């Protein structure tokens, strides 16, 4: 019997570490690798031009790599539930493979396709390769609940079996006698479309700062590791003005689209560390970036409401303001705060911003200044940010808006001070907001405070050429922190209007909400809002790049173990 196979690319846009593809090739006579251009791209139709371009680059790269193996990529337009029955019949398919998608929308879609496949007598091969671990196992190990603090997550990870090795890359040897029937009009019927064909206006579009594709990803990985080895230091580098700019060793978009296998990255990091540090066991912080990603995938996988506040069991219900005007100013970089506007401009132009920049703008939109729902911010990031996929984007926004994961809300990023500390000279601002080029460093973060002469000299009058600040930050943040306190007080089942003295204690340490409101055990949270662990790549997720340094330590108040003598006092007693 002839075995005709379809491999369905969704994420996992690569030929290295692609176990579902590799396994389904075994014993196949023909292979067709397809990508379905689903109007519901990755679960939403809210996709900007940079993300489309990146995807198209990935598809072109795949096509080129497949060509070298005498195969091609088949790009098919439509919805999977319509496309597959047709293809099963036309191509006489008896085998289908794809990489496991842990997201609720993905699981639902795949269940429908499985059903169709069963009906058509098509064998389905699914393998996990978008995450390091089998997420269901993590959940099982945690008492059938996804861990809601990173600390707990790490504890569970420590008990998991080792990460599986990456699968062998697809080469002609692997393919052996498996062929791809390619028609004369393949390009016409199944070629990778261009941006114009998709309806985008490309005039004036600058070259992509982040070129997509597996080839680029693997090259970056090498560079990334080289840089680490050269520095022989796996510490997170301190943030400086340069960190704000796109890095040629940045990997986050490639991980998101699956051009780079997270497992390959994991093992390469491990190997390098062992080589440089002479066989010491790598600390968990080495994989910070990857584990954070894993954390959010795990929290999201069984929660179809993960990207909403309403109906989401892990999300605090916060009475956000509905304000489309204010939202638009934020999204379009017209807030009047150069730090915020420059970041949003970079995001729109290039598709990537540093994770601390994400913190700044996310805080500004939600709990810091505008008091607008994180769902709105999430949608804007979804459109513009290359590495924002559903789980990680939603999770990060909830994190940054203090809507979940037991985050302290007392500290708020100042839209003036924070930028000034990071880049005192203001070069970043001048680069993305050329209208403000003429301002000296002293005033570039708060140009509305500049005297008239300075503004005139800069040829930029605030209120005319550049907007006035849209809020009074001090006033807004003061009101908002009070609101957050109100909400969290209610959560701890604190009834009545009586006042709670402590600000820090209003946020519970874990999911044991309620009771008498006072948690007698100590909570020590060292939150790492710096770059993801020790990898140079500043971030994988939207704003959240907390490594195992986000330690939630439970220390009983009366268990006074002197710190010098016992490292246990820093570890969770759970």
């Amino acid at each position, binding site marked *: 019997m002839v075995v005709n196979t379809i491999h369905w690319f969704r994420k996992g846009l690569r030929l290295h570490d692609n176990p579902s593809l590799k396994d389904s090739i075994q014993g196949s006579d023909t292979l067709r690798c397809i990508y379905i251009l689903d109007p519901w791209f990755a679960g939403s139709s809210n996709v900007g031009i940079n993300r489309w371009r990146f995807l198209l680059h990935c598809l072109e790269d795949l096509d080129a790599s497949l060509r070298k193996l005498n195969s091609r990529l088949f790009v098919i337009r439509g919805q999977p539930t319509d496309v597959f029955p047709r293809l099963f019949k036309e191509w006489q398919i008896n085998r289908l493979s794809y990489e496991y998608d842990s997201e609720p929308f993905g699981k639902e879609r795949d269940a429908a396709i499985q059903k169709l496949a069963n009906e058509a007598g098509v064998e389905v091969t699914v393998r996990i390769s978008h995450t390091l671990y089998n997420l269901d196992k993590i959940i099982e190990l945690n008492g059938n609940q996804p861990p809601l603090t990173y600390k707990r997550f790490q504890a569970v990870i420590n008990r998991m079996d080792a990460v599986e090795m990456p699968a062998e890359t697809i080469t002609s040897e692997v393919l052996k006698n498996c062929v791809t029937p390619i028609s004369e009009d393949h390009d016409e019927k199944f070629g990778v479309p261009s941006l114009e064909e998709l309806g985008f206006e490309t005039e004036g579009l600058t070259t992509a700062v982040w070129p997509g594709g597996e080839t680029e990803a693997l090259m970056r990985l090498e560079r990334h590791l080289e840089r680490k080895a050269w520095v022989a230091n796996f510490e997170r580098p301190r943030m400086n003005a340069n960190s704000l700019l796109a890095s040629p060793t940045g990997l986050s978009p490639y991980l998101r689209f699956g051009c780079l296998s997270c497992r390959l990255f994991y093992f390469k990091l491990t190997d390098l560390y062992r080589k440089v540090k002479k066989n010491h066991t790598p600390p968990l912080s080495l994989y910070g970036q990857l584990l954070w990603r894993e954390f959010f995938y795990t929290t999201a996988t069984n929660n179809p409401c993960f990207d909403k506040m309403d109906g989401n069991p892990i999300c605090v219900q916060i009475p956000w303001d509905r304000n489309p005007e204010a939202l638009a100013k934020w999204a379009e970089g017209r807030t009047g705060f150069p730090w915020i506007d420059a970041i949003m401009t970079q995001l729109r132009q290039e598709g990537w911003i540093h994770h601390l920049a994400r913190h700044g703008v996310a805080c500004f939109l939600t709990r810091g200044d505008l008091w607008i729902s994180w769902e709105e911010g999430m949608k804007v990031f979804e459109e513009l940010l290359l590495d924002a996929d559903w789980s990680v984007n939603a999770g990060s926004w909830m994190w940054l808006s203090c809507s979940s994961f037991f985050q302290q809300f007392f500290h708020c990023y100042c839209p003036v001070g924070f930028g000034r500390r990071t880049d005192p000279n203001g070069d970043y601002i001048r680069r993305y907001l050329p209208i403000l080029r003429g301002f000296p460093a002293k005033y570039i973060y708060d140009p509305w405070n500049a005297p008239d002469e300075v503004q005139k000299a800069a040829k930029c009058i605030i209120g005319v050429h550049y907007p006035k600040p849209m809020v009074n930050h001090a006033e807004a943040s003061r009101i908002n922190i009070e609101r957050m306190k109100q909400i969290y007080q209610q959560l701890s089942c604190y009834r009545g209007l009586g006042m709670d003295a402590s600000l820090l204690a209003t946020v519970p340490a874990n999911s044991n909400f309620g009771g008498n409101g006072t948690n007698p055990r100590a909570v020590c949270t060292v939150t790492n809002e710096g770059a993801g662990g020790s990898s140079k790549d500043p971030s994988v997720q939207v704003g959240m790049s907390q490594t195992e340094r986000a330690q939630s330590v439970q220390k009983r108040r009366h268990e006074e173990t002197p710190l010098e003598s016992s*490292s246990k006092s820093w570890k969770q007693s759970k």
Partner: protein
Amino acid sequence: MKRGLQGNEQEDGGGTSGGCQKTLKRSRKQRREKDLEDEEVRWECLPQEILLHVFQYLPLLDRAFASQVCRGWNEAFHMPELWRCFEFELNQPASSYLKATHPDLIKQIIKRHSDHLQYVSFKVDSSRESAEAACDILSQLVNCSLKTLGLISTARPSFMEMPKSHFISALTVVFVNSKSLSSLKIDDTPVDDPSLKVLVANNSDTLKLLKMSSCPHVSPAGILCVADQCHGLRELALNYHLLSDELLIALSSEKHVHLEHLRIDVVSENPGQQFHTIKKSSWDAMKRHSPKFNLVMYFYLYEDEFGPFFRDEIPVTHLYFGRSVSKDVLGRVGLNCPRLVELVVCANGLRPLDEELIRIAQRCTQLSAIGLGECEVSCSAFVEFVKMCGDRLTQLSIMEEVLVPDHRYGLDDIHWE
């Protein structure tokens, strides 16, 4: 529920479930039916006290559904005990994602239950309409004897955007009619001195809690009147401009109960604002009179406005700096705040806070919670700080950005120390 009770209820004529009219006389047929009926559970004959108890556990919506079951349950639904507490949520679709309390329900409450209401709060979104709707309801609570009233803005302070007179008259209705107000929360509202006088005239014996931060129309004299007359006042929240030596003395007078909680917001309206000072003797009087009271201070000042503060000893217990605060000021905090329990620093600047933190650890022996935002602390200093007060810390929240690795410790090392 014991089935045996059913018969007895009817006899006693407990007047409970109105819809359950059965006689005890039964024919043979009925007796057989009764045996069958004994197998069924007669929910409609549940005594009202029990119904009430059960209903108290149900959220309002479920209770409302239950009230549709039969007349008896409907009566139970309207029992006064179920209407003592209510939270009115007033939201407009254009300004909020959350649902509002249904207008029909509001009408019903005003019609049937305004006498029963005792613990009431209004949550309003950032629209003026919501604030006005809240005041409209307030104005109709003429027969209420409220113990608790909370006016809560959940987003922008919309009570400040409505006509002041409308607000004042609505609030006055409550003050005059309640006469036994115990807790009042009116932050971010246009309440003024005359209305406070009305409050005092009617509720001075009962007032225990008054939360009125950010009420710009009140003057120090206005709040002094409250302190002078309301000797049961235990918890007070206000802005610094209302604080005076006289106020603190009044709160410390013999007739006055021990104060439990005083919260003060120090907010700068304009850069370079000057703030008055409070004498150390006034704070001392407070401490003597109420040795255990919590003094919570929130500072929202520019760095150069801290001149008058922390020059003398001050009994502050919970200190929050919402904006960047200088090393100098933090140094003074270490010297002058021996009662400090919680310290939160939102931002500081680029110079490390090492010495200041150590001094605070040394001198603030009650310190049990600390939060550090955009500051800088060297790892060594941090380790030393924790060694000094780690055993009494119940909260330690610090962004990693804060820690600067130095020659003794790198960031990884910190964790194992």
